């Protein structure tokens, strides 16, 4: 084989030594590709490992059930967890129906045209806008202009806009994966278009839709810049949706940047990382269920 190459490709000057050189280059190059992949995984392990190793020892039942004291220096993160859950639920209650409806429209009803292209462009744009811009907008629009003040409502509505693209995109993909024959079967039985979507398409696409919603929760839980200027950062349990509150990510930011308490900082980071791990795990499980249909 090598000899054949040498004879036939004299013009290309391939000799047995250069074949060796090519093999050597390939080994070096593949080594570098392996290195790139290994670096990526190591970085992930280093970050998660660092947080968990330093934080798990400070977790206790009290940390979850006690109120923060002394600006978060001592005590737990009870009201902070509750605020985070409130905010996630509030934004999902609004973003999920809107996002899924938008996805249904884009996949089942829309015909390619200017408006559809504009909707797609804007969805893409929303996904690319940095969270600090959402924070600025949420502050000037919801907090000041609509006078919702620093509150769960202001924060939740800002986050709704932020997670909308994620929910729309994943729902769209899930709906597109539903086989055409399902729809035809339903329509042939005399169902209307909406009945078909509601009773056949949506249930089949549900795991994918839920994946998008779960990924949305992940973004809400991890978000800081857009939340801190809309939902505020005050401690204490928000007793209504018109009250401000502090989420886990905002709390972690405050603890870290003000150097208040290393123990509580790592403990909060651990809770945050574990939440993200659970969310990712759940999303992966659901995607696998969708692929099976």
């Amino acid at each position, binding site marked *: 084989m090598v000899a054949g190459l040498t004879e036939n490709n004299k013009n290309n000057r391939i000799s047995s030594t250069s074949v060796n050189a090519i093999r050597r280059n390939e080994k070096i190059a593949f080594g570098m590709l392996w290195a790139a992949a290994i670096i990526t995984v190591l970085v992930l392990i280093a970050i998660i490992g660092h947080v968990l190793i330093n934080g798990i020892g400070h977790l206790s039942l009290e940390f979850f059930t006690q109120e923060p004291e002394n600006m978060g220096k001592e005590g737990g993160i009870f009201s902070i967890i509750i605020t985070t859950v409130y905010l996630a639920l509030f934004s999902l209650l609004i973003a999920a129906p809107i996002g899924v409806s938008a996805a249904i429209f884009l996949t089942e009803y829309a015909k390619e045209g200017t408006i559809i292209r504009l909707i797609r462009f804007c969805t893409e744009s929303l996904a690319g806008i940095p969270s600090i811009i959402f924070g600025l907008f949420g*502050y000037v629009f919801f907090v000041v202009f609509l006078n919702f003040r620093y509150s769960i409502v202001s924060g939740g509505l800002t986050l709704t806009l932020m997670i909308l693209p994620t929910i729309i995109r994943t729902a769209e993909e899930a709906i597109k994966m539903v086989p055409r024959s399902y729809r035809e079967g339903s329509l042939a039985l005399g169902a209307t278009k909406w009945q078909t979507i509601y009773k056949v398409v949506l249930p089949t696409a549900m795991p994918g839709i839920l994946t998008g919603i779960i990924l949305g929760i992940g973004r809400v839980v991890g978000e800081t810049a857009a939340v801190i200027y809309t939902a505020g950062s005050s401690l204490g349990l928000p007793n209504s949706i018109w009250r401000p509150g502090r989420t886990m990510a905002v709390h972690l930011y405050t603890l870290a940047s003000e150097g208040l308490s290393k123990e509580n900082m790592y403990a909060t980071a651990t809770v945050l990382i574990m939440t993200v791990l659970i969310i990712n795990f759940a999303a992966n499980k659901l995607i696998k269920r969708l692929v099976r249909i």
Partner: protein
Amino acid sequence: MKTYERIIQLVLFFCAVIAILGVLLISYFIIKEGAPIITKVGLMAFLTGKQWSPLQGIYGIYPMIIGSLLATVGALLLGVPVGIGCAVFLAELAKPRVAGIIRPGIELLAGIPSVVYGLYGLVVIVPFIRKTFQNQGFSVLAGSIILAIMILPTIINISESAIRSVPKDYKEASLSMGSSHWQAIFKVIVPAARSGIIAAVILGMGRAIGETMAVIMITGNSTLIPESILSPIRTLTGNIGIEMGYASGEHQKALFATGIVLFAFIMLLNTVANMIPKKVGE
């Protein structure tokens, strides 16, 4: 029945239009708040002014523009080779079992909140730089390292799908001409996927420029023009993030004006990335 179906279609349409409404509202309010300062100071003076002293009413964001660009270029220099390497690895070399470990890892990397990256930078990267270079540690370099990690998922995911979209024939033709697997990757597959890879890099760049919390925690936030990669910097996002907490009046409007510049950068990058076909044959 017919009207019922129509009403539903209309409702769905309105939900889809909310994305347009969102972008319009965001653009309108950011511009409305920030534009007066830009007209007052003058666009060129605002962009090229080297001094940022809100208390004296002097608003120049040149140091922040340089800060953002330096941190982003640094992040790309570190992140792009690793990201593309990892994408090629996943698309061409990795056995399903290996890819099955790496891919969820990349998703996780994308899911880690930016404050956690900031925390890691603050307690690990910054002290490391401080020890190695005998300086304050908060620097362009620290920012670039953390941003490089944060943009990896974007670069890897989009590059990998671009590489996977290259028709098998290309590779087979190259191999049958006697090329090695690496030559096929380097001379045929990656060049064929280049527009998708470029889009991946541009989107990664957008993420790096837009990142706020992690950057605030590790770059030092000085408003001086950086002299080297070991100097502290303040980015455009950092400028807004730090001062929004207490700014009011004209000062606050100047932060919205900073937001306009940032917004313009991002929209430009996103539009360019959207226009580039991300997969072969698209």
